């Protein structure tokens, strides 16, 4: 039900980026069933990410991870009133077309799924639906934005319950942005070359001191304190994947992470909501992961 028959005014940069602005300060939760989606909505999630297996299970079970079954995504769309996101494989523009046709509100072109193209990301500007993409540093973030991403998240290392890689990526993004602000016009040309990003975008970041799109964090968050730490490191919101529904008490942990994200700078609140949450997800030491099992190295 578009406001005009020709759908004029839909899918603009402002509409896509503006949607992400509405999610700020919020928590986006991975869910695999309509029941989990309802639990997430009840806990105060700003959106859910519909997928077939959470990253921890993708790791455990192996095989090729793809876009989810449309029936499953539809079931989740029907179950909740908050926005529904879904993942497409890196470069798999037809999965993205299918997700757009299903009516998802945001597509995550995600390294958690098995990449479908080793050279090209999806041309995201060709879609009405907005995209979020992962990044490990500023150059990667700017390359995704130049392809049309309307939101960026750190990659972290999904499905590990270990926040160390998300920390690395958030610090790298922040350091990269700060460094640009110290450069003069001539140096920005060189920086653009080094970052392998368009110089206009590099100039824009240098002037604003921030990305032109919303920056969330993702990958390995498992506790309220993890979420608050990422917010203190400059994230504007958080994705939590396996950390909620692989824990002992998902509903309570989900609500606690929502509260810790809002009061990320108030240790008293974080302490209070962190009590009695039951078992967190078990987790994996990222240092022992072989390179072939690191999702953050997917994409470029």
């Amino acid at each position: 039900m578009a406001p005009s028959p020709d759908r004029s005014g839909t899918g603009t940069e402002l509409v896509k980026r503006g949607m992400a602005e509405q999610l700020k300060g919020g928590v986006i939760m991975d869910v695999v069933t309509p029941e989990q989606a309802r639990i997430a909505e009840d806990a105060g999630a700003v959106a859910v990410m519909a997928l077939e297996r959470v990253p921890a299970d993708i790791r455990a079970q192996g095989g090729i991870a793809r876009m989810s079954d449309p029936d499953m995504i539809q079931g989740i769309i029907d179950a909740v009133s908050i926005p529904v996101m879904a993942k497409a494989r890196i470069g798999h523009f037809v999965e993205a077309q299918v997700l757009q046709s299903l009516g998802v509100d945001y597509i995550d072109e995600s390294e958690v799924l098995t990449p479908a193209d080793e050279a090209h990301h999806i041309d995201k500007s060709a879609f009405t639906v907005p995209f979020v993409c992962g990044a490990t540093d500023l150059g990667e973030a700017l390359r995704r934005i130049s392809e049309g991403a309307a939101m960026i998240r750190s990659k972290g290392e999904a499905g590990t319950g270990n926040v160390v890689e998300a920390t690395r990526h958030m610090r790298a993004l922040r350091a990269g942005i700060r460094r640009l602000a110290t450069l003069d016009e001539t140096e920005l040309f060189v920086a653009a070359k080094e970052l392998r990003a368009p110089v206009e975008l590099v100039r824009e970041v240098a002037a604003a001191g921030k990305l032109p799109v919303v920056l969330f964090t993702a990958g390995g968050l498992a506790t309220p304190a993890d979420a608050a730490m990422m917010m203190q490191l400059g994230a504007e919101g958080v994705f939590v994947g396996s950390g909620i529904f692989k824990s002992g008490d998902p509903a309570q942990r989900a609500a606690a992470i929502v509260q810790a994200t809002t009061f990320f700078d108030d240790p008293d609140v974080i302490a209070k909501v962190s009590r009695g949450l039951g078992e967190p997800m078990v987790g994996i030491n990222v240092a022992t992961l072989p390179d072939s099992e690191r999702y953050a190295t997917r994409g470029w």
Partner: protein
Amino acid sequence: MSAPVVGVPVVGVLALQGDVREHLAALRAEGADARPVRRPEELATVDGIVLPGGESTTIGKLAARFGLLEPLRDAVTSGMPAYGSCAGMIVLADRLLDAPPDQVTVGGLDVTVRRNAFGRQADSFESTVRFAGLDGPPMPAVFIRAPWVEEAGEGVQVLGRVEGGPADGRIVAVRQGNVVATSFHPELTGDRRVHALFVDIVRRHERGQS
């Protein structure tokens, strides 16, 4: 006789979740002392309150959990100026359609608001709205999974409607006393006329009380 000297109006932005920073920037540009509000004691320091865009279910739950719901209701009921954009319109509405049965709101605005009325994100759009009482060209308006006012009570002034398309004539901007609400997001477009209007409402309210 010159106008009485009054201080800079202090305007809070409910900062539980949503596009808080954009509202703070727009209010400051219009001369307000704008502050984020996350706690009842912070609400007590402001002369007016903005309910930002965001996810209305999340904002409602956090407001309830952190003891802000009743103080907000009391403030709006007792005449504190309030402005809500998008999710903020939902939070100010007395009645909701297409909402989860347990969704809580602050209320205070005698309207029935339909959530996600225009559709999903693929249906979100930019347009313009002729805003009653504001000088200048039609206002650029961005609607993001936006609500509309399905029914407005007798005391509610309609300030803007959708023009053209299947949603033609739907109400997207209203005012009732000191409470203003828009389905769209003036905080995202750089057109600050709604924020200027609201800061003026806060200023007049303070002057009337002093």
